[in-house]
C-alpha cells in the first residue's frame, strides 16, 4: 500500500491518475486490483478531509513588510 497523501489535492490527483491507469486496456488485472484498493483508501481520505475541515483564519502583521508606517485601526467597511 502506498503512503497516505500529503494533502487533499494530492489525494484527488492520485485518484485521477488511478482512474486513468485503470481505464487503459493494457493494465494487468493484478495491478488494477492493487489500484482499486488504493483508490478506496484515497476516497475515504478525501471524504474524511472534507468532513473534518474547518476554515482557519490567521492574522499577519502588515508592518513587518516595512513598506510604510501608519497602519491604523482597521475601519469598518460598511
Amino acid at each position, binding site marked *: 500500500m502506498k503512503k497516505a497523501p500529503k*494533502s*487533499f*489535492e494530492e489525494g*484527488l490527483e492520485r*485518484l*485521477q491518475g*488511478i*482512474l486513468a491507469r*485503470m*481505464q487503459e486496456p493494457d*493494465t494487468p*488485472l493484478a495491478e*488494477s*486490483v492493487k*489500484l*482499486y484498493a488504493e*483508490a478506496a483508501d484515497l*476516497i475515504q481520505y*478525501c*471524504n474524511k*478531509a*472534507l468532513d473534518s*475541515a*474547518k*476554515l*482557519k*483564519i*490567521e*492574522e*499577519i*502583521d*502588515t*508592518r*513587518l*513588510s516595512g*513598506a*510604510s*508606517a*501608519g*497602519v*491604523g*485601526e*482597521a*475601519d*469598518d*467597511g*460598511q
Partner: protein
Amino acid sequence: MADYIDVTTLNRLARRVLAQCEPLNNLIVCGEISNFTRHYKSGHLYFTLKDADSSVKAVMFRDKARLLNFEPQNGMLVLAYGNATLYERDGAFQVYADYMRPFGAGAAQMAFDALKKKLEAEGLFAAEHKRPLPVMPRCIGIVTSKTGAALKDVCQVMGRRWPLTRLLLAPVSVQGLEAEDSILDGIHALESRRDVELILITRGGGSKEDLWVFNSERIARAVYACPKPVVSAVGHEIDYTILDYVADLRAPTPSAAAELCVPDQNRIRSEIYSFGQNIQNSIQSAWQMCYNRFSTARPEQAMRIQRSAIAAKQQQTAEISARITRTANDALSRKQAALGASAGMAASLNPYAVLSRGYAMVLDETGGCRPVGALRPGQNITLKGDGAQADCTVTSVRSDREDPYEESTQKL
C-alpha cells in the same frame, strides 16, 4: 527718522503671527484648481485654489504629490489637506497641501477617467496580463478591514464552500487618509509570503468617497506588479474602481469573490463519488474481460488442440492395430502351412501305419521294439498288429541268410 523694519523682518513677523494661528496649521481647503503647473525639474506642484470670490496660491511638494491617486487638472474641484502660511521670500500667502482629493461628483469622475485612460494606455488592464486563479487554493491572503462586514461575508462563504483553505488576513484600514498606505502594506506583506496562492482585496459597500482609495494609482501599480493573482471585490455590484480593472478577476461583492476564489465542496464530493463509481466500473470490466478471455478464448483453443491431438492418436492407433493384425495373421498362416507339412511328414513316418497293411511289430517283455534277429529261444514276446496283439514264446531263432558268422539257428 521713524523706526523701520526691512522686508525680510516683516515677512518673518507675518509668518510667525500666522504660525500661531492654530486653524491655519491643520486645515482642509475646498477650491478649484487653476494655473496648475508641475515644476519640470523639482516635480513640485504649483497652482491656485479659487472659488467664486477669492483665490490663494498653493504648493504641493514632490514627495506628497507622488502619493496622489489622481492627476490634478485645471478646473478640478479639490479638497486640499495641509496648512497655510507665508512664503517669506515672496511675501506670498499660500497653502501647503499634504494631500488632495477630488471633491464632488464631476471632478472625481474626471480624475477617475483620466487615471483609467492613462493606466489602460500603459497596459495595466490588458487581458493578456490576467492570470488564472488556482483551482483549490490552500492559502488565500485577504486584504481588508479586520472588523468589516466584507471579512465576515468572505469567511462565511468560504467556510461553507471550501473549509480546506486557510485565510491569511492582512488587517488594513480601508477608508481615510492612511488607507492607501495601509492597503499597500497589506498587499506587500501577503505577496512576500510563499504560502499565499491568491490575494483578495475587498471592502463592503460605501459611498463613492469611501471607496475612493481603491482608485489609487499606487495600489493599481502594486497589484499589477504583484506576483500572485489578485481578486478585487469593492463595494457593490455597480461600483467599479481602478483596482477592479487591474485585478486578475473582479467580483461584484465580497461574497461573490469568496465564491470565485474557492471550489464548491459539494461539487468536489460528487466528483469523488463519480471517481469511485468509475473506478468500480473499471475493476468490474477488467474482471469481466479477464474472465471472458479465460472462458472463451483459452479453453476453446485448448479443446481444439486436444481434439485434433486425439484424432491424430486415434488414427495412429488404428494403423498400428491394423498392422499388428496383419502381421499376426501372416505369422499364423505361415505356421499353419508349416504345421500341415509337418503333419503330412509325420503321418508318412508313422510306424503304426504299416501295421494296417498286415505287418506286425515284435515287442519284448519291456515293450521295446526288437528286431527278430535279436530274439532268443524261450523268450516271451508280444506281436503287435493292426488292432490286435498276440503273446508268443520264441521256440527257436533261425537266420534266413547263410551267414558264416551265425552262431545259432532259431526255430519258430
